[in-house]
């Protein structure tokens, strides 16, 4: 069951009127003709729902109020008896705009005297980690510093500097965005939505509307058709709520059309990153200064924390004693950018991992050796936050990747291998709670707010429960989120669920188990310490006395009861969210073997090898699935996927025809390698995997192209046209 499969008997269909302008004042909206179309039940504009939300910065109105800040922004919406009527009604709404200067490039937005996109930015509420720069378009800035950067450069034998551009892009979840909202007679709002963080969403909307949590209920359908970070934050559900406030209790459903998904849901941050690195002759990195501008579009969404994470990994997974990383989250009039798998790291990786290869090349050092020489290891100091790192599987990842891709095998002209590696934090501190209830028939339910987006979290939580409780896998069910019943979970993002919710569930299972064993101990006349559960049966060590869990519970409570175990996990770390050193870090390396057609610039990827340190693979097949999926998404980013804008800021290719994601024929052979540097605090030693698998692929593509052809790209994607242009320029330079 996905959001569009849910059935409501008196549902109304919603349709959105979107801005055709990238930056404009709204002078006048006339909804009269729309309102009088038969079958139309509600028409709303910004003044009908004057609320602003946004977890990082509360800057995003449910519907535009006095101006629009990007093409596709919500200006008005209609709820009607059928989709067709809703669409016709939207067509009848007239809007008068007064265009303003639109800023479509991040570097234009930071120029002094650039027109302000959010004039009132300094009045917006925001997360503590966010540092707004008032009266500019910079909605947040971050800085990490270790050692003495100037001294570092002075001590270097060579200093290299270059600037890299990372493109925007789209998540392309195959399931479009959708939501249903309903307002009861007593004013309680229920929202059904495919969102990766129902409790976070509830808080965000409740804060925006100034209502208490208990007046808003967020329910996630059992499955979500892909998220990759895009289905977080405020999307269509706020428009559904605005409409539902005016439909006398009838639920309002909006499912976006595919072109709306492309143009107006969420994009990935485009980024301009300058990296300056100082090294010794022998390749030791001494100092790195990275400066990164993230284009967050019209509204901040998760931009600030994306920038933060990008900065956190901004110098790469290397022992660098002197670092300075500066990150800026910048408003432009491009569509809103937010969380996309990797959360700022594909962008920073593109810069520093390309740079490492450039340096290795100049110094005549092997690209693998250069990385191994500087790679973080157990006990190293985090070059940005300065904390001491444990559970570090990086070198093994690099070595095994190089081996799997046959790094040293000679290859014909125009064919090459490239590698990139990375480390990533998870959002810290953040918390998860869960219940495990054990029924009188010996079955168990895991009550959790973790969302099944396809990453397999329900399976993992079931496995953890079974492992801890000693019951078979087919006797566990895992709930879907409903904020009225399932306890707080920060989110299913940041690759945090296996670790945080896994620990919470494990604690809950342990709690349930100790209650059961206490009862069984009494019944079997044994010390609970001597009891073990396997396959639903409790055994006394060293004896053949046993009883089932069902017998234990029914024996104690003859007319029935449930054993309720509760568990919480919140790392013992002070500070607000995202402010602290990470509770765990993920490490990985990926290598791409590709061939370039020198006459057309077309790339064929032959093979990818990817090694990821996951702490402990609780479900190896699922880990492989994450690696394979992330790699192919990364190849799309590196080679095919390009958002094309016209000169007015409108996306020209909002469809799968011309925004090309890899097909089964484009996907190469992929070798997935699981590395396990176990983490003391992770459930059974596990850490995380989800995002890492997309981070290094685009850069590995760039590095492979260099090794294959000598072309060093500073921007992506490596479309045939872009590559051919570089190849031809180089030929004419050689001939000249």
């Amino acid at each position, binding site marked *: 069951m996905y959001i569009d499969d849910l059935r409501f008997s008196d549902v109304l269909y919603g349709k959105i009127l979107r801005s055709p302008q990238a930056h404009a004042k709204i002078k006048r909206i006339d909804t009269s003709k729309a309102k009088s179309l038969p079958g139309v039940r509600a028409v709303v504009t910004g003044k009908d729902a004057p609320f602003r939300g946004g977890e990082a910065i509360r800057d995003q109105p449910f519907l535009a109020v006095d101006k629009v800040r990007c093409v596709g922004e919500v200006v008005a919406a209609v709820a009607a008896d059928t989709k067709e009527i809703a669409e016709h009604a939207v067509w009848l709404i007239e809007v008068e705009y007064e265009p303003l200067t639109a800023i479509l490039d991040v570097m234009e937005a930071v120029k002094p005297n650039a027109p302000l996109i959010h004039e009132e930015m300094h009045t917006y509420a925001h997360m503590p980690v966010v540092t707004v720069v008032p009266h500019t378009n910079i909605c947040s800035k971050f800085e990490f510093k270790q050692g003495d950067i100037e001294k570092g450069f002075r001590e270097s034998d060579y200093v290299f500097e270059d600037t890299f551009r990372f493109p925007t892009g789209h998540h392309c979840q195959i399931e479009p965005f959708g939501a249903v909202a309903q307002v009861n007679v007593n004013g309680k709002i229920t929202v059904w939505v495919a969102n990766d963080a129902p409790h976070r969403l509830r808080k965000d909307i409740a804060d925006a509307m100034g209502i208490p949590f208990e007046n808003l209920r967020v329910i996630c359908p059992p499955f979500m058709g892909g998220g990759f970070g895009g289905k977080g934050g405020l999307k269509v559900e706020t428009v559904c709520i605005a409409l539902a406030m005016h439909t006398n209790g009838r639920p309002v459903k909006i499912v976006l059309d595919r072109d709306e998904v492309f143009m107006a849901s969420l994009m990935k941050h485009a980024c301009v990153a300058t990296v300056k690195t100082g090294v010794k002759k022998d390749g030791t990195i001494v100092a790195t200064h990275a400066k990164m501008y993230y284009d967050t579009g019209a509204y901040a969404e998760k931009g600030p924390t994306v920038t933060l994470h990008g900065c956190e990994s901004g110098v790469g997974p290397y022992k660098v004693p002197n670092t300075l990383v500066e990150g800026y989250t910048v408003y432009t009039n491009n569509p809103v950018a937010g969380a996309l798998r990797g959360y700022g790291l594909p962008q920073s990786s593109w810069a520093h991992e390309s740079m490492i290869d450039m340096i290795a090349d100049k110094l005549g050092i092997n690209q693998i050796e250069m990385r191994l020489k500087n790679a973080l290891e157990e006990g190293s100091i985090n070059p940005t936050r300065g904390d001491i790192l444990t559970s570090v599987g990086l070198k093994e990842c690099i070595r095994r990747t190089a081996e799997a891709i046959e790094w040293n095998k000679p290859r014909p002209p125009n064919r090459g291998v490239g590698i990139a590696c990375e480390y990533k934090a998870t959002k810290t501190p953040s918390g998860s709670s869960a219940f495990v209830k054990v029924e009188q028939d010996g079955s168990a339910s895991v009550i959790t707010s973790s969302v099944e987006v396809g990453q397999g979290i329900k399976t993992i939580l079931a496995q953890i429960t079974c492992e801890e409780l000693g019951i078979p896998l087919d006797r566990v069910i895992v709930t879907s989120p409903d904020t009225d019943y399932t306890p707080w979970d920060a989110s299913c993002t940041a690759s945090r669920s296996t670790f945080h919710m896994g620990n919470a569930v494990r604690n809950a299972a342990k709690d349930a188990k100790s209650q059961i064993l206490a009862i069984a101990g009494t019944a079997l006349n044994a010390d609970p310490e001597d009891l073990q559960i396997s396959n639903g049966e409790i055994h006394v060590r060293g004896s053949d006395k046993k009883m089932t869990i069902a017998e234990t519970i029914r024996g104690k409570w003859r007319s029935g009861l449930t054993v309720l175990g509760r568990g919480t996990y919140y790392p013992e770390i002070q500070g607000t969210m995202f402010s602290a050193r990470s509770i765990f870090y993920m490490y990985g390396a990926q290598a791409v073997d590709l061939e370039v057609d020198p006459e057309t610039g077309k790339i064929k990827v032959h093979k990818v090898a990817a090694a990821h340190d996951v702490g402990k693979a609780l479900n190896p097949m699922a880990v492989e699935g994450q690696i394979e999926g992330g790699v192919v998404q990364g190849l799309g980013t590196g080679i095919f996927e390009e958002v094309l804008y016209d000169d007015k800021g409108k996306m020209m290719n909002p469809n799968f025809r*011309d925004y090309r994601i890899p*097909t089964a*024929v484009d996907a190469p052979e992929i070798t997935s390698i699981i590395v396990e540097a176990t983490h003391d605090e992770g459930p059974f030693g596990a850490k995380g995997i989800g995002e890492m698998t997309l981070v290094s692929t685009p850069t590995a593509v760039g590095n492979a192209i260099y090794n294959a052809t000598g072309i060093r790209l500073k921007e992506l994607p490596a479309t045939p046209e872009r590559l051919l242009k570089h190849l031809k320029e180089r030929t004419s330079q050689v001939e000249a």
Partner: protein
Amino acid sequence: MISYKASLVLTVKTMAIRRPLELQYSEPPTLKEAFTILTRDQGARILAGGTDVIVSMREGKIAPSHIVNIKRISGLDRIGPSTRGGLSIGALATIGSVETSAIVRNAFPMVAEAAHQLGSLPVRNRATVGGNLCNSSPSADMAPPLIALGAIAKISGPKGKRSVKLEDFFTGPGKTLLSKTEIITEIRIPTPPKDSFSAFLKHGPRQCMDIATVNAALLVTMKGKLCEDARIVLGAVAPIPMRAKKAEAEIRGKPIDDAAVRRVAEIAAHECVPISDVRGSANYRRQIVDVLVRRLFGKAMGSISSR
């Protein structure tokens, strides 16, 4: 452009309607009845496979008031020998049936190849040859090979039948020489002369599923060691699929060697008139034409050396 300003006040309606509130629908069982409907109703639009028409409607590009499904008309989907020689492909033959037809694969392999590279498997099971040609996209995959083979399009209308060279069928992007009441019924491909070799190539960023940035077909007829005739057809580089006649003239009567092929390719690249759009710039397209034409010769002539 990275920033711009305009100072007028605009009153804007949104995107075009994509879901009509109502739509008339007919399924004429005969051509005659189809003509009657088309003559009577100006807003009528023929529906064959639907893989272009329905998509165009959903994107708001066309808004017919009446859909005329001609798939119930029998006899228009046959693939087999033509009574007049060569092969007859009914306009309603699906691209999938062309792709898998033994007779097409044996006698006209490049037509089967082009069919295979069109869209995806589910699309090919509905899309028709006639539909691909009538949609008249400059990048239509079926057009270059059929034009190179000298195909004839048979057309029926209320006033009777006519035949035109497929080469003359297209009049502009999205436009053909069909009148509002005519229907293409058959493509006849004459048997190529003895010692003819053919090839089709399509270029896009991915390995499949792309709308061509450039596609091209070649039919070469040899007389001994000399090229007696060459028909080079390019797609997606002009308002309609075009024959590169200057390039053809360059090789006619000459031996086909590397230097000659390079010259032909260069002329073809200059002869075409591509535009820049989301799929590629004009400059890039010209470069690809050069490459594809050279490779077409290599591919076609490769089938000589394999004999």
